[in-house]
């Protein structure tokens, strides 16, 4: 366990260093060290401290948040196709953000609206799925999928009525764009706190994966645990989407990739998801801003292009 996590740590660190070095202006390792030490020319210092480091850290945090949220959703719903957005969270956040853009608000309010939208979506699905008596994962999933479709309709409506010049900004938000992140600290702190909070619960999550009846029989308090996981996953997803828009693929595939290699012990998978998800998004973001520079691609395109072959390779190897 320690070995796999430390390998992931080293890979993550290398990815971050690569991201800091590459870009429209390549910063060689010597210059990189000079800037870290406080010297180095003004352009490299500005590039590194004010553009690349916040962006890279935000990408790492967002990737980690999405991967952990995906893993938690897959455990909660006992469904391998679950991803952080399946319960309509990204739809709610998108409606919040697009509404803010439509009414011409500043970037801070756009992020705030996105977060409020995500939280509203969470409460809505939770409330609707509750019904009479308890909710089951399938009921939650159904409600979530339908509400997500509803948000999708509202998003389409907003895209149809918005003045033409606001469209590119909205589309880029929907495609996911790490450059929106102005400060990486909120997502990093949320990621760190969530790992700390969820690790003690990981053993119970392993038991929960066998089914609620068996888990209850083995002494796990199922209902409170499910509520905790749901709220935590929603918070992680809301933070991720508020930071960088709705980036797809990471939350669905990274947990599966890790399970193929590391097995299904949540005590390993959850921290590994944080590291691997972060690494994937950092590499994807580096590619997105360099592959056809000075044109800037949305990072969601690259996560899928990188993730699909990797996943297929791992799947093939595990046979």
């Amino acid at each position, binding site marked *: 366990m320690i070995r796999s996590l430390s390998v992931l740590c080293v890979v993550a660190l290398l990815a971050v260093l690569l991201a800091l070095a590459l870009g429209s*202006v390549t910063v060689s390792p010597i210059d990189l060290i000079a800037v870290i030490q406080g010297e180095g020319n003004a352009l490299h210092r500005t*590039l590194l401290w004010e553009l690349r480091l916040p962006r890279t850290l935000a990408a790492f945090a967002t990737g980690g948040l999405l991967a952990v949220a995906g893993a938690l959703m897959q455990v909660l719903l006992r469904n391998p196709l679950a991803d952080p957005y399946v319960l309509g969270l990204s739809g709610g956040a998108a409606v919040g953000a697009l509404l803010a853009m439509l009414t011409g608000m*500043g970037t801070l309010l756009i992020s705030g609206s996105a977060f409020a939208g995500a939280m509203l979506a969470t409460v809505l699905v939770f409330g609707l799925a509750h019904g009479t008596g308890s909710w089951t994962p399938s009921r939650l999933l159904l409600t979530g999928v339908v509400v997500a479709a509803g948000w999708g309709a509202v998003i389409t409506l907003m895209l149809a009525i918005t003045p033409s010049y606001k469209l*590119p*900004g909205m589309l*880029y938000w929907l495609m996911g764009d790490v*450059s929106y992140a102005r400060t990486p600290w909120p997502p990093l702190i949320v990621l760190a706190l969530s790992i700390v909070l969820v690790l003690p619960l990981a053993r119970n999550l392993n038991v929960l994966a066998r089914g609620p009846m068996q888990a209850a029989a083995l002494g796990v308090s199922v209902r409170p645990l499910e509520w905790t996981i749901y709220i935590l996953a929603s918070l992680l997803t809301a933070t991720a989407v508020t930071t960088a828009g709705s980036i797809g693929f990471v939350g669905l595939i990274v947990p599966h990739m890790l399970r193929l290699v590391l097995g299904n012990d949540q005590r390993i998978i959850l921290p590994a998801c944080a590291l691997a998800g972060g690494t994937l998004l950092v590499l994807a973001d580096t590619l997105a801003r360099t592959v056809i520079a*000075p*044109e*800037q691609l949305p990072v969601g395109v690259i996560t899928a292009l990188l993730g699909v072959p990797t996943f297929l390779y791992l799947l093939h190897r595990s046979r």
Partner: protein
Amino acid sequence: MNYWPVKALLCALLTLPAMAWAEVCAEDRRGVQVCLPEPAKRIATLSPGATELMFAAGAGEKVVAVVNHSDYPPAAQKIPLVGNHTRIDLEALLALEPDLVITWVTGNPPAQMEMLQELGLTTFAIEPRTFEQVSGVIERLSVLAGTEKEGYAEAQRFRAGIAAIAEKYRNVEPIPVFYQVWETPLMTISDDHLIGKVLQLCGGLNVFGDMPRLVPRISAEVVLAADPHVILTGSVEGTSDDELDHWKSYSGMTAVARGNLFFIPASPISRPTPRLLEASEAVCQKLDIAREN
């Protein structure tokens, strides 16, 4: 009597205005007074229109960074690119070390514009919406670039040209016109848009002139109901001109019956630059033909 303190004081007083005059200031579209300690030497233009306006102001050699589609004048095509006007490559922009960045209020992404301010770059926002604002912006850009002579001359040439066309078409019979910006979705412009003002200049009556939106999306039915006498659209070089073919099936429309479906070059009319003069001449010529038909 010893006059040297007086002479020294006079010298100092005389140099003060000169020191103040080295600084250049102009007010931008946001109402911000933008000042540079001396005329800009390295200018970045974040829209194709701004690139053209900078060349018009006589400061073409000072432009060091442009965005996609900055294709006029031809010299602009050799300038390094820093992305698209909707997505700027901030690293590439920073690497070119501009001392003045010309931004587009509604075209550039607000988040990136905030970032530019935070990085300490001097930005000047433009968004000319009338002919007078076009000449005004050329003058203000030339002040910031230190090329007042060429800039003011160009602005005056533009003003005189527009005034001449306005005079020529002052008493002409207005003709209902529909300007098609895009085929699917069907888009047009209102009178607040520069294209709408070009139409008005030539005695055209934009059938959608008083729509609340600048670039409304409409349906074919509304156009049929408005029954314009002439339909205009922009023709892009290198593409086939078939964007008006879909109107030909409505033979009851006045414009179709009289054969008044015309193309004018798209680039000059779509940008807020001195090429609006050529665009106006093209539009006026087509409207004249339409009046004859």
